């Protein structure tokens, strides 16, 4: 019964003016900064993926968490998986058994809201040429979403295993739905998929205050976030970036996305190796 938030009331008055035949000069469109500023971002470039031109930010894992041989840890962890096949508590890891570690992809999406909202950033952590890299496909503005989805679908279809945090309920169906909206073909729903949230809930139930990604990040992977942006603020900040092209608004979102995929990977490795590999005590780390 109360559709009249401030914004709507403002519009109401202008509708009334419109009906009276009054014309107001249009306010100047927001000044958009040139895309060249985006190019100043480290790792930023325009690439061709499966014939689609897309803007991406590509960073080496080594550069982000120096000194951690995550690739080796991943291979070792996956090597242990077969021994867990019978353990109910790790049932969620079974799709990963026997998968080629070099064809693993961690997936995390950023959207402008919840269901029904556009995906503007697809974050991937993959192994390329024997190195772990984060690849973030970005829609610099709303119309680029379809290209981002098309390129992401192509990269994901190359993967033998997809790992997410809460992807069963959110990232995978959300990606598939946006794809179907744009007529983009994807096999994501049929890919082997490990949702870390489900495994984590069984493994660490009751140990921490909850099983959210950042909680596990603090307690299990001993990582401290710096320069992060709260998830809830991301949609509004992206709309703002899209309108102004202000890259300084975008940077915390990109950082947030990278930490999310890194933590997802490290949780997977920890679970795959768990036990015996000791998780604690260890020094706290920060993603640069």
């Amino acid at each position, binding site marked *: *019964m*109360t*559709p*009249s*938030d401030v*914004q*709507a*009331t*403002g*519009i*109401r008055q*202008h*509708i*009334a003016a*419109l*009906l009276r035949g009054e014309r*107001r000069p*249009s*306010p100047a469109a927001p000044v958009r900064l040139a895309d060249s500023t985006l190019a100043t971002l480290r790792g930023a470039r325009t690439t061709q993926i499966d014939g689609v031109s897309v803007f991406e930010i590509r960073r080496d894992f080594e550069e982000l968490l120096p000194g951690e041989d995550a690739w080796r840890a991943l291979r070792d962890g996956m090597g242990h998986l077969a021994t867990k096949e019978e353990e109910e508590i790790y049932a969620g890891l079974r799709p990963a058994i026997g998968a080629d570690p070099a064809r693993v992809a961690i997936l995390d999406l950023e959207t*402008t*809201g919840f*269901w*029904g909202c556009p995906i503007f950033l697809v974050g991937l952590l993959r192994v390329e040429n024997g190195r772990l890299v984060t690849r973030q496909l970005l829609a610099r*503005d*709303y*119309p680029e979403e379809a290209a981002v989805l098309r390129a992401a679908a192509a990269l994901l279809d190359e993967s033998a295993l997809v790992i997410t945090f809460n992807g069963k309920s959110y990232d995978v169906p959300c990606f598939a*739905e*946006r794809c*179907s*909206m744009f007529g983009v073909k994807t096999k994501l729903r049929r890919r082997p998929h490990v949702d870390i949230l489900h495994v984590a809930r069984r493994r660490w139930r009751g140990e921490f205050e909850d099983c959210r990604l950042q909680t596990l990040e603090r307690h299990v992977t001993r990582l401290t976030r710096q320069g992060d942006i709260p998830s809830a603020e991301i*949609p*509004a900040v992206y*709309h703002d970036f*899209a*309108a102004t092209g202000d890259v300084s608004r975008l940077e915390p979102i990109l950082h947030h996305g990278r930490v999310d995929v890194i933590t997802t990977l490290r949780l997977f490795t920890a679970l795959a190796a768990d036990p015996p590999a000791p998780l604690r005590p260890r020094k706290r780390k920060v993603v640069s």
Partner: protein
Amino acid sequence: MDVERFLERIERSRDYGGQIAHVETLPERPARYEPLAEPFPPAIRKALQGLEICDLYSHQARCVAEARERRNVAVVTGTASGKTLAYTLPVLERLLANPEGTALFLYPTKALAQDQLRGLLRIAELSEEIAGLLRTGTYDGDTPSVGRRKLRDEGNLILSNPDMLHSGILPYHAKWSRFLSRLEFVVIDEIHAYRGIFGSNVANVIRRLRRVCRHYGSDPQFLLGSATIANPRDFSRSLVGADVSLVNDDGSPRGRKKFVLWNPPFLDTANMDRRSSNVEAHWLYTELVKDRVQTICFSRARVTAELIHRYTQEMLTRSKPELAGLVRAYRGGYLPRERREIEKALFSGELLGVSSTNALELGIDIGSLDASIITGFPSTIASLWQQAGRAGRGSEEAATFFVAYNDPIDQYLVRHPEYLFAQSPESAVIDPENPYILTGHLECAAFELPLGADEPELFGEIAKDLIRLLREHGRVREVDGRSYWANTDFPSRQVSLRHMSDDTYTIIEVPADTGKGDAYRPRTGPDFAPPDPQEAKVIGNVDATSALELLYPEAVYLHDGETFVVRHLDLEGKAAYVERREVDYYTNPVLEQHLVLREERERDTFGGADTGFGDATVTWFTAFFKKIQFFSTDSIGYGNLDLPPQNIDTTTAWITIPADLRGALKRLGKNPVEGLAGVRNLLISVVPLYAMCDRADIGGVVDSKNLGQPTIFLYDRYPGGLGFVEHFYRKPRTILESARELVEECPCDGGCPSCVGLPVLRPAQHQDPDVGGAWPIPDKDAARIILEELVTRAAEIERQAGGEGTARRVAPSPVPRERTTPSIASGPSSGVAGDDLPF
């Protein structure tokens, strides 16, 4: 039934006092059948055999033919004429031919969709092939989430409602891409329910659906069903935004029907009070049931449906106890299971009678009955005929009784049967391009898919300007010629299709309070402790607006004729706690309504009268209640209440007539306020013609408190206003001239429902009209004088001002002829299609 014999018996009875004011015989009409050009496939023929149908009625055959030609069709025929079959058969035929195809059926209420699903499943049972084809279900607020996903992913025939389409399907259309990309048919039944604000909203939801379908490469055909209205073709076209073929030549048979106008007798020689209409209705109802004539008794309010039921049951218990269990009450607010039970028992003939609100007016399938009683005019001619149409099976004779209340409209109708039988049903008016309504839907549309250059083709030319406004306000942003939703709001949550709240209260029965002290008086208010959940039982529900008028502390809540006393109304927890207690009275709320002018935005004069436009708050609340004894309707006490007021902030337009005109009226022996009340009623009839809204969408009061002088305030019955009454402020000449014409051309003597006689403007939905007290029809002469004077003076002022004045003149836009004689009253203010909760 043998109506003649029944009437004779009634007339000979001791209680008869000349109540029959008029008997109109509606002639019988034989069935007309028509063959199909191409026979149906075997699966459908088999199902029709099972339904014992050999040939289709002419209107059904025409609907099938039009649908096969891939045209949109509206089937506009009487109650029980087989509309459902008319639109279901072509859908089944298409789905049999194209098993990948899908269809969406929309109904104005959840209850109706659920009822229609049962009908569909009955057809499916008759043919294995159809049963194997259909993956169907209702998709609404009651559907569990597992069922939702299955329907979305696999369903091919989904039944839902416009509210769900608006807020539960379109914003998530990607989840529905399979269903939508193969959508062959959209069926919208009971379209006459989509009038006014609700209809204008629904029309935009349909445009959004067509737009999303286009995106997925489908272009569904629309099959519409409607009760008789004055303008079915235009209305259908504006509802779906495309051309629609009309099928309105009803081929179903109708038996002879006697339509009896029944006026309760005077109680005294002074001819002031009449016997209670509820008591009269229950007498007729009881006599019919005693004759084993299956009867439906309609009345205007939930409380009257319950009262009539209670009276009837008592009377039957005394005279024919074996029949007392064969009557039930039915209304919105009953739990679904109870309703299903009653509907089934009616359909099977197990029940002999039902006392109902208009909840049974829409197409819930209860089969046809022998007699219907309509207690009090149901606010529109269209409703009256819908209710009358519930009686009459095949070629058998049937009866409808209209029992008048002692109010001016009902009394006018029994005095002037020719008016009742000649009056065409109302037009259904919508304005999908109302800029306030459209803006909300453009926001929703932008969220669903970016707005492109082709939107004006779907939403009208004004969409261009409105999209520009949305851009200027940062709601959308244009990139490469398309406008994208550019903020974090979820627009469909901010647009409500109906002007009523979606909140519901739960009615919970608790054990009687047998605590210390006065056991009779329940502890209420702050002393009330919610009971042990194990002892509490949910017996019904009610919408939030009604809760404050029905379930105030100490109210008697009637449910299936039993009395419950409200112990506590929990406003925060949205629950009413009632206990079962046998009392010999019911309660009637007394409402107060105020309009407070908050801000004057503009002012002007017209013919020496001050006019204005601004913001107002309209407030109403239940001030106290009366205890009314059953049967006698004697008031036996009252109670004060301290309930929070309900209000809407909206826009208002007003006119204050000059003091000398008031003086002149007084010198003629006329009360100016009664004249103003007449003018107000005329304006409520005329403004909708210019504002393209329903009469129930605007309200009006005559009040002296705000401006110190008697003033007519008109307001939009929607939060924030929708620009309806603003038309009056902008075009006073056109509108006042139309009002003057209307009153001058009306052939009645002292005022009638077609001119100054509109009844109360917010029909109290929960009051018993029997004890509301009669109010006079406003003074027709005084109203005419006021209008005449204003229009003449305005013309005079303009003449004196010379060219300057004529330049300001607004050319009166022509009012369509058939609309200048609006009929009777405004509908219920809630905008609900019936007494039911919508979704």
